[in-house]
């Protein structure tokens, strides 16, 4: 790993300033992606601005909304009793990220800012129609993930919280890569309180995407059979040593059906 200048601000404004002043700075949250990337020499930032000093961690559960502060580690989202009751799909998703030690370190803010195409949280943000709150503004989940490893965040903008509306019912089902536990495909299906349905797919494409045809079918009839005949196109989906685009396209329907059946 190349050396860097280390900053540990205690206020968001100081973090933003440190980034503005840095030649090629990177924000560090849990470090579960950034540190391995730096160790492999794939990234060599001039400055690391560690957001751990902000103390921005914790969960607030309201009647209609669950707010997860950006620095909250996956383990805390997974085990929080309030989250489990309000949005069991969200706590299950968080409890399935990586492994126990990774969940003790990785954060929701870091995960969504990184926008790994195989990460789990983007499916929750888009599938549950969440809002991403940053140091500068609020961004609707649908507009946050713009491309592979790219988000709507500006270079000096920090995620501060994610607000999840409490759905009527939802479930997240993923087909984990057996080694890394990253989603080869993961599908969040949610019926929101206004009756609209969302189907958000991670792992399959360059970034999280929705399947409007399935959403429409489920709004008319919320059952696994309603979407059994709906396939997504394989073209444009991810292709790697783990799975072909055709296989991933097939998994989308299989996992979406399972998620509908499991929704609660």
């Amino acid at each position: 790993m190349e050396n860097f200048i280390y900053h540990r601000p205690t206020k968001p404004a100081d973090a933003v300033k440190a980034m503005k002043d840095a030649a090629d700075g990177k924000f560090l949250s849990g470090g579960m992606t950034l540190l391995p990337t730096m160790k492999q020499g794939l990234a060599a930032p001039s400055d690391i601005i560690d957001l751990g000093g902000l103390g921005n961690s914790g969960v607030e559960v309201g009647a209609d909304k669950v707010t997860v502060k950006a620095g909250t580690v996956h383990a805390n989202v997974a085990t929080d009793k309030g989250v489990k009751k309000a949005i069991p799909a969200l706590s299950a998703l968080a409890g399935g990220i990586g492994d126990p030690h990774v969940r003790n370190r990785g954060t929701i803010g870091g995960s969504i800012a990184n926008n790994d195409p195989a990460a789990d949280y983007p499916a929750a943000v888009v599938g549950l129609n969440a809002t991403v709150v940053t140091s500068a503004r609020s961004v609707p989940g649908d507009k946050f993930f713009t491309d592979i490893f790219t988000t709507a965040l500006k270079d000096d903008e920090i995620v501060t919280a994610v607000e999840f509306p409490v759905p009527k019912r939802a479930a997240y089902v993923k087909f984990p890569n057996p080694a890394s536990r990253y989603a080869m495909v993961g599908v969040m299906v949610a019926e929101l309180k206004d009756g609209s349905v969302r189907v958000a797919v991670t792992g399959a494409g360059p970034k999280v995407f929705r399947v409007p045809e399935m959403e429409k079918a489920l709004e008319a009839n919320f059952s696994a059979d309603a979407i059994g005949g709906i396939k997504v196109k394989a073209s444009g989906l991810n292709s790697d040593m783990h799975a072909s685009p055709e296989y991933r396209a097939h998994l989308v329907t299989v996992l979406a059906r399972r998620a509908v059946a499991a929704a609660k």
Partner: protein
Amino acid sequence: MSAISMKVNGKAVCGAVEPRTLLVQFLRENLGLTGTHVGCDTSQCGACVVHVNGTAIKSCTALAVACDGAEVTTVEGLAKNGKLHPMQEAFREHHGLQCGFCTPGMLMAAVDLVNRKGKTLDEETIRHELEGNICRCTGYHNIVKAIQAGAENM
């Protein structure tokens, strides 16, 4: 260089490190605590698991400077007064190690598991919770047995 201080296995320690120094390097190279191992160095294998402020983390994927002020427990901190920790005793009793390389991480993950889920653990839970720890000798069978027994004795 940054000056850092921590409490490691109950003892106050300090040192000067480069920002890029990983926690595992600080433990092994600065403090000479070589019980914590570096296996894969890509945060997969779990040989480097230690407890930081009471939770298990992979010390190959944490900056030492970011752990300034933390309380750290390594495998060396498990035994008390020359007596093995019940989990260590169980690994010995149930032949929970072959080459022993993964063992420090397995032990720290096992103790963390008991701290989180209690002393009565079924086989499925233990296997699932060991997702982040890889044994290259593939001795999982006895590791699982050892953890089950060790948990009961904690």
